[in-house]
């Protein structure tokens, strides 16, 4: 959730490839955004800001509020709360749907070591510690103080109305590193801060609702 490895698989063809439609389509969409529908995606929502404050209290490993970016996203998943919580609590499984997390080694009840893909094919590691854990309700974690990219995450599960399953809300905060790499990083994230969380949550939903993650590839090697 901290970088954009997905760029590799990004299928945003140029207008030329797509005939005349895409530009007109995006120009039209831009007019819709202008009235503000996407603003909430770009600025942290109020609830996301609260999470950030909670994150700060936890320890010095949490990202510095002033410098960090916060993104939040909610999806409804048609599975019981407990099942979704259990799946997320099993950190070793997260890389299945967190696109840019290569692996997570669970070290003990609360600590884990994450290997994450960074910009331009780099990869980096950090230790993460669970800071809040209420079965069926919420899981939150934050990086330990020496992390290159200080970050924290929080996933909340609450019953959706009308038997629609569970609303899963993920909030991620991170403080990009300094230096040139950090700048590339920040640029990539600014472009569409919510993108990675959105995609990761979508994959989580696909996995939990359908037992598999949707891919368009016709062959295993391409998927």
């Amino acid at each position, binding site marked *: 959730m901290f970088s954009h490895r997905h760029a590799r698989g*990004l299928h945003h063809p140029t207008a030329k490839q797509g005939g005349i439609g895409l530009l007109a389509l995006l*120009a039209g969409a831009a007019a819709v955004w202008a009235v503000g529908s996407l603003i909430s995606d770009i600025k942290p929502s109020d609830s996301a800001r609260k999470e950030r404050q909670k994150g700060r209290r936890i320890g010095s490993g949490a990202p510095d509020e002033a410098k960090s970016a916060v993104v939040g996203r909610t999806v409804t998943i048609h599975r019981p709360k407990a099942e979704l919580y259990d799946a997320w609590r099993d950190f070793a499984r997260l890389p299945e749907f967190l696109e840019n997390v290569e692996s997570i080694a669970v070290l003990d009840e609360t600590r884990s070591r994450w290997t994450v893909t960074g910009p331009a094919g780099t990869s980096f590691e950090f230790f993460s510690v669970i800071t809040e854990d209420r079965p069926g309700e919420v899981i939150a974690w934050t990086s330990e103080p020496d992390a290159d990219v200080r970050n924290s995450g929080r996933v909340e599960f609450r019953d959706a109305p009308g038997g629609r399953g569970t609303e899963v809300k993920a909030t991620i905060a991170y403080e990009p590193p300094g230096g040139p790499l950090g700048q590339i990083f920040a640029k990539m994230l600014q472009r569409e801060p919510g993108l990675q969380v959105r995609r990761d949550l979508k994959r989580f939903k696909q996995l939990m609702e359908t037992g598999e993650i*949707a891919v*368009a590839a*016709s062959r295993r090697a391409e998927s």
Partner: protein
Amino acid sequence: MRALTWHGKRDVRVETLPDPEIVNPRDIIVRVTSTAICGSDLHLYHGMIPAMMPGDVLGHEFMGEVVEVGRGNTSLKKGDRVVVPFVIACGACFHCRKLQYSSCENSNPADTADLPETVYGHQTAGLFGYSHLTGGYAGGQAELVRVPYSDVGPIVVPEDLTDDEVLFLSDILPTGWMAAENCQIEEGDTVAVWGCGPVGLFAIQSALLMGASQVIAIDHMPTRLELAQRLGAKVIDFSSADVYSALLDMTGGIGPDAVIDAVGMESHGFAFDNIVDYAKQMLMLESDRPSALRQAIFACRAGGRVSIPGVYGGFVDKFPIGAVMEKGLTIRSGQTHVQKYLPRLLDMIREKKIDTTFLISHRMPLEDAAEAYRMFSDEPDTTTKVVLKT
């Protein structure tokens, strides 16, 4: 395998590609026996749909034999003969459980679902062979196809029905049916249908089956108008008659109770608004050309229903929202929720209540698909529907 691929505007080719494989547990592989070219494919052929990539395999109307079954599908077996819906749907998400399959939240992969979310505000289902807006799944104008979520979509068809009789369950028959259903037809109703392509023709047939007293078909192609007439519709040739006044004449001055736009984003004609739209489309100021839709909304009686099976992908100008509001019209639309209609329509085909083969004008080998596209695009009057055989 051999497959029809898209390379740009009016450039499609039959090429050799690697065979598809089972990728996810719920997949099957289908060996295609028959596949059709759709009016929707023409929008791709004309470069009207964004997010196409050179090499994409087209085709979303297909059927064939199951040749491989993933371990997650326990309902199909090798050798089954299936028709595959053009909509890919997971069967488990909120929308699928509401039978709104074409809004499936899971079948459009996470990275491609961003585009419809950005442009439309929400995800749309994955579709076969229909651009990277809808997943970029390889289509069925090919010898072999990977079919995801195969325990939800494909329907097994009995051996006593021919390919030609059941193939259109994949799209245009349920599309025409849903278009008519969206008209909420009541006794005494007149339904007017713009476009006598395959979708319009099935909408006409469906509207009559649903009890419409009168169906009026509008087009400018003689052969297609004749097919509509043979189904029992009255016809208006828009090249020689004023559609609005003809419709009022035929409905005692009331106007049709329901109107169907089975034309979509590439309206023909030399109505002034259409020429302006055409120019804007070329300049990328507008993505769709909605002349038929404007006319339909204008002609629809107050309190009537507007059903839009015709495909639109983006934005239109001069949308007559005033007529919609002031006349209190109801608009219903959507990519067809194919899965929802299959069992019932298959029964109706078996009982010979619906004629599904009357519109097929050409049967050609897949190898000739590029020529078939050209004919369907350039000689549409006589090329009403092409079925490709592999």
